[in-house]
């Protein structure tokens, strides 16, 4: 088969509105602003919370923020990859719950190694189911993963009879818990996965294909990119990352419990969009998503330290999310301003 002759990112870029020569400088400034905006939001939050609480900008608390970002970061990486292709995965929270339950059951009956292997494996199987239906049955990702959202969560409940399953101290908890040089081990795992996904997205053909498929799927197909296979891989990756996140959350809370993944779904999507990855695909990336994850983690941590009224906390989160998206979103692309 002939290899595609067109560089996929070029195909992706061609879907962007052309910047006229006279508007080139302003356009570049706007692009730079989109990249810088999440940093600005982050810095504003850090300064604000440092003033509100003397504890906030201490090494111990920064490690806290790192630890509390780990699970969300891993899920956001999977979500980023899916969203780069213009799809969405609504099942990540339920995959996390199911994977955590299977790992917890395995940890009880077959030991640490089985748990460590099974969590990502369950995620992989869930991702394969999603990916096969989306890629080869050509069903919309929104509906397929909405089905997965219910089905995987229900399966977790069925396996566990709705009961939390505790994790014995030692074993998995020991392998993934604790800290190395003061840095929480679960954060190190999350950083390791981040590095792998960044390399895959930026320096491999697979990564370039992601942007091409998200930029314009039809053009990508015409240039010879195996769009179906890329979509399948994307959901496989999302599933594996949700399984890995399950392992980290399992260690963090020392138990698998019903609905444990559900709160992460909207947070992960929100973090990715806040970071600047477009819901319609083709722009953004995993590095951008770090900013979104940190914004959410810092907000949660800072408001607890500042003893903000619980009702006001939700208002503040809502305002910051909208403000961050308003600053980072490329509104020149009509398809994402609907």
């Amino acid at each position: 088969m002939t290899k595609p002759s067109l560089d996929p990112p070029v195909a992706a870029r061609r879907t962007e509105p052309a910047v006229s020569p006279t508007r080139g400088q302003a356009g570049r400034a706007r692009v730079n602003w989109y990249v810088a905006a999440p940093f600005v939001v982050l810095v504003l939050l850090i300064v604000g919370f440092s003033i509100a609480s003397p504890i906030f900008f201490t090494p111990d608390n920064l490690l806290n923020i790192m630890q509390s970002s780990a699970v969300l970061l891993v899920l956001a990486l999977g979500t980023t990859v899916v969203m780069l292709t213009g799809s969405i995965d609504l099942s990540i929270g339920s995959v996390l719950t199911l994977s955590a339950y299977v790992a917890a059951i395995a940890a009880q009956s077959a030991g640490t190694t089985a748990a460590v292997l099974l969590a990502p494996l369950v995620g992989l199987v869930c991702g394969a189911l999603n990916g096969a239906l989306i890629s080869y049955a050509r069903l919309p990702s929104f509906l397929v993963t909405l089905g997965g959202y219910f089905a995987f969560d229900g399966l977790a409940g069925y396996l566990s009879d709705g009961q939390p399953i505790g994790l014995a101290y030692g074993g998995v908890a020991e392998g993934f818990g604790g800290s190395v040089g003061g840095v929480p081990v679960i954060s190190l795992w999350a950083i390791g996965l981040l590095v792998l996904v960044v390399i895959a997205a930026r320096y491999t053909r697979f990564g370039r294909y992601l942007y091409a498929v998200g930029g314009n799927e039809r053009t990508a197909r015409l240039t010879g990119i195996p769009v179906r296979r890329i979509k399948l891989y994307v959901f496989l990756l999302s599933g594996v990352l949700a399984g890995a996140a399950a392992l980290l959350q399992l260690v963090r809370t020392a138990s698998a419990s019903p609905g444990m993944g559900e709160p992460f779904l909207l947070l992960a999507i929100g973090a990715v969009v806040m970071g600047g990855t477009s819901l319609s695909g083709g722009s953004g990336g995993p590095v951008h998503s770090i900013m979104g994850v940190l914004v959410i983690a810092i907000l949660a941590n800072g408001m607890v330290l500042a003893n903000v009224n619980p009702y006001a906390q939700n208002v503040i989160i809502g305002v910051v999310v909208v403000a961050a998206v308003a600053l980072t979103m490329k509104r020149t692309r009509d398809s994402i301003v609907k």
Partner: protein
Amino acid sequence: MNSRHGPLRTDLSRRTLLRGAAAGGLALAAGLLTGCATTRRSLPAAAAGVTDNNWKVIDQFYTLSNAYFQGWANGSAQAAAQLALHREQQVDNMSNDKVISVFQQARASNTRAMTSIVADPGITPQVLRANAEAGIPTSVAWNLAPWTTPFDVGGTFYQFLAGNNPVGAERLAGLLFEKMGGTGKLIHISGIPGNSASTTRDVGVDAALARYPGITLVARQPGGFDRGTTTPVIESLLTAHPDVAGIFCQNDDSALAVVNALRSRNKSVPVVGIDAIPEFLEAMQSVPEIAFATWAHHGAWMGGALMVRAYDALSGVKLSPAERMMFTGGFVLDTPAAADGYNTLMYKGDTLPYDFSLMSKALHPNDWDPQTTMKPLEFESYFSLEKPKPAGYTVDPAYAAARDGDEFARVEAEYKDHFRKDPFADIRRQCAAGGVDFA
């Protein structure tokens, strides 16, 4: 050979793939349904003197995903079996639409009575009035929209039962403060902002704080009654207040997250929770220096007692105004031995330690036994904790007469006198603070 038609390649059409996936999905669903239909615990036979009147009773509650409601379902099923009631379980998963649908369809499905707990008390006036129109007697537990009472809805709203949150939380907090030596910093992990259980438990903690001026509340943040939500909150708070001396959690699920966070930091700070779920009871045995105490208020009793109320309502038993809204009993477990005894009795046995038929006034008009402490609930002060009395609200004259006379005291004494069979007598003796039952 063309690689597209190699030996390992199968060309599935989209239609074939969809058909296969649909068939597989349906087979999986059918398998799960078959599995779900299997009863996991054995049910007792009908009690002596009980005849099968073909009475269908719907037991509606909002989740099966925690030990309290699994106990509830178990108690309800065992009571229904003893009373020869045809129990239909409806779990709404916190969906108001499903609750409304269950209530609306009750009359059409020949339901004779209902037991209910809704996650969102705001819909209780609507669904209770629907059952009043349908003439279906209904008993409700725990969550009720403020200022919605059996006296306002009418005779089909048979009874409201609830644990005494302010008193339970105050007693538990008092024990914690004593353990702290009456001084030091306290972190309070509350529940869900606006939730009635959370609000009324806050009231109890505040009352205890007023009695112990040496205790300083340094943080009160919601944990959502959930270990996942509590984990980042307590991690932040432990960093902010490393010298905390005690932590009060609004339920055991949150308390487990706190225990876990303390263990990972090698800190030993006493923690209390509410509900007496198996995992916290096990933590009380494995790390008693951290997992200190919990308030046991028996989900199995509540589920079973409501089913008994359905039987009594259908048998024509009338309740006095003082009995229409009542607090139900519980006690604080505060030693590893008591935690072990409770865990074994309530969660590990094949049957529950209650005789539900003995709770029925219809079956035992003279020797009925609630098997726990119960006392009349004075709803004006109870609802005022959440919402001021609406302008123009009129208290039912029969209730007002009972409240102003000696009816409340008489009913409390009567229930105390009838409480003879105590399933927890041995466990109470193992509690350091005496394990006294209170409502």
